[in-house]
């Protein structure tokens, strides 16, 4: 397996959806390739922090404005 082939299936590896043989090939490559090990752990961390950063909450004042807006609109329609 080359670095290109490994990186192409990284999501499937991290999601645990790779067939056994492919996973074994990937792990063999990882055992011998420092750049791919670095790529894997930073890619995984990117997924994690990207998800956390995107978990924004709607501000309470905005929720209150939305409620007023919808009630006004629906009352008028």
């Amino acid at each position, binding site marked *: 397996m080359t670095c290109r082939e490994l990186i192409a299936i990284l999501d499937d590896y991290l999601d645990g959806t790779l067939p056994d043989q492919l996973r074994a090939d990937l792990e063999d490559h990882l055992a011998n390739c420092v750049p*791919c090990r670095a790529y894997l752990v930073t890619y995984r961390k*990117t997924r994690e922090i*990207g*998800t956390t950063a995107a978990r924004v909450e*709607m501000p309470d004042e905005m929720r209150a404005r939305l409620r007023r807006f919808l009630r006004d609109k629906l009352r008028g329609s």
Partner: protein
Amino acid sequence: MSSDDHTLLARAASGDGEALDALMSRYASRIYRLAYGITRSSADAEEVVQDVFLQVVQKGTGFEGRAALGSWIYRITTNVSLNKRRGKRRDLETSLEELLPRYRADGHREGDRAFLVSDWSGTPERELLAGESRRILEEAIDRLPDHYRAVLVLKDVEELSNDEVAQIVGDTVAAVKTRLHRARMALRELLTQRLGARA
């Protein structure tokens, strides 16, 4: 759509405040997260939420699709958000090609060895999500194309399946997976460029 959702929509459309509150508590946060994820602007996201809710309440009772109400709402939110972004902030977006790994003819990665082995993953998450690191992360997310951010939010934050995401954005599962992978690779590259030197 379930009969419960249908009833709730009909009641909300006729001005029932309780039904409206129930719909808001089910869907407002989800709509806002997706709208903000795509537009990257709180003000734009607020307008999207208002627009989507109005559409959902006013047209929802006539919606006879087989899809769940949630999926339908995500689809409307994605479309309204992408429309709102049309023509905006393109200057910030980067060509993703520049941020994807480069390879030698033998399939191994090309580039400076120190960069290739750079590993900032040991930095605690709370540190990465605060201060200068957080700013770097937000800038990196800003630089992704809108439709890449849409699939990232739907998949990673809303935790939908690839099938569901594909239906919402009107693309194939393979295209969604490719987009996710390219978005994550681009983000990783941008973060490594900025954080790698500090690790």
